[in-house]
């Protein structure tokens, strides 16, 4: 029974470690099992997602509006949509534009080193134009769009965002279809009536390719529509095959062009890819050298137990990195520091266990017994110590994410993942590996598992030590 349990746990360890290593070694994971779809990985080292400080890029934080004129959630959404459109035009591979709190924007542009150009693009005020769209010959209204260059020509109408009173999403009361509702200022209504009258006329003269009314934001067409009748009162509606969500987004984008909010730069940071690569290389060298020193120390001081711990720590490192890749967690320098601190915790858990084992061996217990008691005795302090670190990491996370994107967040996240993994490593992997090693012939020489000489065996060289008085399978029951 006992043996069976041990083989089961060995199998579990092998599976976990294989998954961890293989997910790191496969640069890009592309898994589709039908019910679950997993796409992870990048072109960077081990396919990890690297932060801007390691991969290079630009980060900007903007304050929208002011204390006296706080932006509404819709305005923020419009702003994010506007900036997303512009950044897409810049051709950034994986831009990230997020809301921080209620009125701030965090913009991350991997690979962008020309921060001045990025600021010019993002900081520009949104311009909404109302255009008269003439489709080129041979193009139906459906065919003339931004994606077909030269398919149309826009004529200015003298009307723009400043003439708009509002735009909103609505529903046709009879058909239930989604509509975009808009309204112009009273003093623009007359001009708009003339414009729509003209557009409506083209509908009757050239029904195959009538001219259209287009709302254009920063040069991108938001929506273009054929006019069904002259709009005299300055308020109209656009119907189409819209989903309610599409209409809502359209309304928000028109609103963002109608009433652009001011944005102020709060912080910015640009890291050149070459410098990022240098930092990454330094961190890797430091990590590998540091880890090697710790492993060497463990094996030299705690002997066979230390070797087991060293193996467990290598597994631990692979598991943490695999979790980073699979979740995914973006790896920054601060995150690496959090990982190092958690590595310290993982080492500590092993040291706590070995010191307890040492005490048990000292009073003459057999190795399997010492291993079991050592784990049990060390567990309460490992648990309490790790929980207190988790609490602190949680507090750091809360204060790091609140209003500005601080490096503290990255530290806290990797510390949390690291501590949880280290607890798992200590109580499951180290323990079972040690128990398995303790069940082999090595158990005859408990001296191999403790740094101090054992009573009665101190004088004898390890190789000539007499066999332990009891059979190894006796303990652990």
């Amino acid at each position, binding site marked *: 029974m006992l043996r069976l349990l041990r083989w089961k746990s060995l199998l579990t360890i092998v599976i976990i470690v294989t998954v961890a290593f293989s997910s790191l070694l496969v640069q890009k994971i592309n898994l589709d099992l039908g019910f679950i779809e997993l796409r992870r990985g990048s072109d960077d080292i081990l396919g990890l997602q690297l932060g801007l400080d390691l991969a290079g890029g630009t980060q900007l934080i903007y*304050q929208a509006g002011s204390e006296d004129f706080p932006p509404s959630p819709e305005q923020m959404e419009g702003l994010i949509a506007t900036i997303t459109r512009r950044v897409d035009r810049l051709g950034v591979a994986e831009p990230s534009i997020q809301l921080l709190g209620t009125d701030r924007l965090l913009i991350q542009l991997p690979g962008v080193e020309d*921060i*001045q150009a990025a*600021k*010019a693009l*993002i900081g*520009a*005020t949104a311009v909404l134009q109302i255009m008269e769209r003439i489709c080129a010959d041979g193009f139906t209204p459906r065919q003339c769009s931004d994606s077909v260059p030269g398919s149309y020509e826009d004529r200015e109408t003298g009307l723009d965002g400043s003439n708009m009173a509002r735009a909103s999403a609505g529903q046709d009361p009879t058909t239930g279809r989604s509509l975009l509702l808009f309204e112009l200022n009273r003093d623009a209504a007359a001009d708009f009536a003339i414009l729509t009258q003209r557009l409506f006329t083209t509908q009757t003269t050239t029904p195959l390719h009538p001219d259209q009314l287009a709302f254009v934001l920063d040069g991108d067409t938001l929506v273009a529509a054929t006019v069904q009748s002259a709009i005299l009162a300055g308020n109209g509606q656009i119907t189409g095959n819209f989903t309610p969500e599409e209409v809502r987004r359209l309304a928000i984008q028109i609103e963002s062009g109608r009433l652009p909010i001011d944005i102020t*730069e*709060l*912080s*910015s*940071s*640009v*890291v*050149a890819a070459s*410098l990022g690569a*240098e*930092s990454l290389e*330094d*961190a890797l060298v*430091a990590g590998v*050298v*540091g880890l090697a*020193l*710790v492993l060497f120390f463990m094996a030299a*001081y705690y002997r066979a137990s230390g070797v087991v711990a060293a193996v467990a720590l290598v597994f631990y490192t692979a598991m943490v990195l695999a979790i980073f890749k699979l979740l995914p967690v973006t790896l920054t*320098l*601060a995150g*690496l*520091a959090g990982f*190092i*601190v958690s590595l310290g915790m993982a*080492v*500590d858990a092993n*040291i706590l266990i070995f*010191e307890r084992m040492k*005490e048990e061996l000292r009073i003459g217990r057999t190795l399997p017994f010492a291993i079991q008691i050592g784990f049990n*005795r060390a567990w309460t*302090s490992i648990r*309490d*110590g*790790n*929980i*207190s*670190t988790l*609490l*602190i990491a949680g*507090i*750091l996370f*809360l*204060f790091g994410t609140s*209003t*500005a994107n*601080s*490096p*503290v967040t990255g*530290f*806290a996240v990797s*510390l949390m993942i690291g501590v949880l993994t280290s607890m798992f490593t200590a109580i499951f992997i180290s323990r079972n590996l040690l128990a398995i090693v303790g069940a082999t012939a090595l158990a005859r020489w408990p001296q191999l598992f403790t740094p101090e000489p054992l009573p009665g065996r101190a004088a004898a060289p390890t190789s000539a030590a007499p066999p332990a008085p009891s059979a190894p399978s006796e303990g652990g029951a």
Partner: protein
Amino acid sequence: MGIVRYRKWFFLVSGLLVLASVVTLLWPPALKPGIDFSGGAALTVDFEQPMTGAQISAALDRIGHPEAIVQGGGANRFFIRLGSLALDERDAEGNVVVARDETLVREALIGLGGAQIGAFDFVSGVIGAENVRNATVAVIVASFVILLYVTWAFRRVPSPFRYGTAAVIALAHDVLIVLGVFSILGKLVDLEVNAMFITGVLATIGYSVNDTIVVFDRIRENVARYPGGAIAELVNLSVRETVGRSLNTSITLLVVVATLLLFAGPSIRPLLYVLMTGVIVGTYSSIFIASLTLVAWEQGEIGDAFRRIPLLGRLRRARA
């Protein structure tokens, strides 16, 4: 009796260290704030040709930044720190209308000869002030949470609140001394603290508490094993049993941190310095301060000490 017998000496040493830390913290500036806290700009620049810090300082002085701190980073690399950074004025289309520091600093550095700007960070005063507030609140909240947690974790021993308080005293001791060390370093070698410094302080808290819990856990175990034993002896025994583990853990951590210090860049260096100081102070306090505070309290010495203060004693007698 070992360390417990000499507790007054440890209290004296710690008391002096804490006092010195408080004094240097009260002497402004308490800590030299980096751009994360004061706002400003920081740059990493590589030059193609040999350059001196003085040349860079002079160039920055000419465009109105006499406060610029320039530090060499080896191989024509320099770290530059500006007290403030005026942003360019831009029109509605995003084009620069009036070039200010943002552009002037770049141009001045490039004018010196082939400057490659590797990193350029700017933080406004608004964010700086928020970071200061968040950091302070985080440290206070963390201390309070730890007090509650340790009290709860030791709920089965007599007077668990004393364990919680002793852990927090050790924690406060560590935080004050770490801050004191950085206050002095800031005054002597212009070492600045950044957001990662706060992370380091909180990591120190985590480490210190973890260490204290290991010792307390052993005390908890020994109290249960030898009921009726004198607390002084039980604490002494527990400390002796855990000291090997405490030292081994600290040494491994110090080795890792020291390796990182050799290789890591300037942004996380303050964090590493704090971790190093924190690990040393945290190990010391968990062995000596936390456990000995517990002994002093259990033996009623804390009350005695207060009664010995002349005025307080008289007040107490008067009330009685």
